């Protein structure tokens, strides 16, 4: 079936540094959503993209508008509160009924 491959699976950053997470899709996707899950398990929506890029503070996400087969999440000037598990999830559209397919997550740890 349709798959979402997320990388890296774990990432350790020092405060103030930049990095990027990536999700590849085995088929063309209609939209992508990025989430952060905190230590209590709450899933917070960061971005929803049907194309192009979106930016919110130190976070920026892009969804490849041509092939629609990958998305990235950039973290600029990482802070301690950015720590958590990040998930991407994509929707194939068509007859999929708005079903999201989740990646396996990136465990981000930001250190002083």
């Amino acid at each position, binding site marked *: 079936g349709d798959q979402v491959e*997320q990388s890296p699976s774990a990432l350790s950053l020092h405060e103030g540094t930049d990095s990027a997470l990536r999700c590849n899709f085995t088929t063309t996707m209609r939209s992508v959503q990025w989430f952060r899950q905190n230590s209590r398990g709450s899933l917070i929506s960061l971005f929803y993209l049907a194309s192009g890029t979106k930016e919110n503070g130190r976070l920026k996400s892009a969804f490849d508008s041509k092939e629609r087969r990958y998305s990235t999440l950039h973290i600029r000037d990482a802070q301690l509160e950015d720590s958590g598990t990040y998930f991407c999830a994509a*929707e194939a559209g068509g007859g999929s009924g708005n079903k999201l397919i989740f990646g396996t997550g990136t465990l981000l740890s930001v250190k002083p």
Partner: protein
Amino acid sequence: GGIITQTPKFLIGQEGQKLTLKCQQNFNHDTMYWYRQDSGKGLRLIYYSITENDLQKGDLSEGYDASREKKSSFSLTVTSAQKNEMAVFLCASSIQGWEQYFGPGTRLTVL
């Protein structure tokens, strides 16, 4: 803004027991979803519903039933809890085809 509430927050059951989880949303969204998350893994879709009284199977529907009693509520039943099962069940809602918003989850432990 709106909110999604899930009850209970923690659910402890016995092997073979039938267990029901509830979800309410006040976004007035058409579509509601139930996902399961195992420790260290991504979410997998169990059931979803695009309108009141509608029910669609996800990838993980075996062993579960669901019911969309009204637009604002969607319940999930574990038909026979499996021994040593531990997972978090997450409810979400959306306008069909758009961004999904998630509840805080119900943590299930089966003894």
